[in-house]
């Protein structure tokens, strides 16, 4: 399971808004075997960022998600993806934040039974720049 993320950011006034583009290369397995066994209906895969700010000790934001149905290929090979949801901070904590960690996780939805939440191995930490972008080149 690997994840490559490169970002291009431009926080804004009032509340910091981050812009991120990313690549994902991932192969979702259950140990050594295929994750889609007889009791798996679908996978809900999401990319989330986690970081700390002065205002809040812990922040987590989902940037992008996807549903993989049984029968679809559990491999992801995505390039130059833009985040699906606006990456707003609660305040101005993104500017100059040294450590924004990106993780890929998924929710295994069974036909019936327990709903586990699994986090992928491999995560990427990126710093956000110190300045705001005034022109939007997004």
């Amino acid at each position, binding site marked *: 399971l690997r994840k490559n993320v490169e970002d291009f950011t431009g926080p804004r006034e009032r509340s910091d808004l981050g812009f991120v583009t990313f690549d994902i290369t991932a192969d979702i397995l259950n140990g050594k075997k295929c994750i889609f066994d007889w009791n798996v209906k679908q996978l809900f895969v999401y990319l989330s960022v986690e970081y700390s700010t002065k205002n809040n000790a812990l*922040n*987590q934001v989902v940037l992008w998600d996807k549903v993989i149905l049984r029968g679809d290929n559990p491999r992801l090979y995505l390039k130059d993806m833009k985040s699906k949801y606006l990456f707003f901070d609660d305040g101005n904590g993104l500017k100059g934040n040294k450590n924004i960690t990106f993780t890929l996780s998924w929710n295994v939805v069974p036909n019936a039974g327990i709903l586990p939440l699994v986090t992928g191995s491999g995560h990427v930490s990126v710093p956000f720049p110190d300045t705001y972008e005034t022109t939007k080149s997004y």
Partner: protein
Amino acid sequence: MPLWSAAGDPPGWQRDEPAPPRARKRKRGRKRKRGRKRRGTRAAAMPWLDFLDDVRRMNKRQLYYQVLNFGMIVSSALMIWKGLMVVTGSESPIVVVLSGSMEPAFHRGDLLFLTNRIEDPIRVGEIVVFRIEGREIPIVHRVLKIHEKQNGDIKFLTKGDNNAVDDRGLYKRGQHWLEKKDVVGRARGFVPYIGIVTILMNDYPKFKYAVLFLLGLFVLVHRE
């Protein structure tokens, strides 16, 4: 020999002795046959009277016993429900999905099992069931964003998988975030379809009364 001896008296029989058994036996046989025939005709005409006869024949003590039995079943069910509430920490450990906003994962009528333990913090990606202040209906959606302070105060935003936008439009006017107190629980497991019965009972109240009436009748009349 007395002057008034009856003509049908067997020879040698004195009036003050009890009558010989011969006559009694004949009478008993005749009565039984008569009784059987009578019951047969009555049952064929009105079969449900048999059932009411059964109930009437149960004396008062048996009736009280049946009522107590029924009470015990209801109390046990209530105890199991309260026990579940304690173990899971949620005020409603089992909920039915009412809308299609989490498709294709959950459909209307699916049953969800929730826990609400304080030691488990709310994290993104989890499926939470929450109530908006002032509204009774619980909503099942996924956590999109969380902002948690050092002391554990947390505010979070949710969105249904099948919805295009997040839930801010659903919250109370002026409310931008949800808090821990709005959460009923987190979905840990589910079974499909079974909750349809609850939805049917809500939409068609006559169905609910019919089911309850039949259940009550069955328990009261069941002999064991």
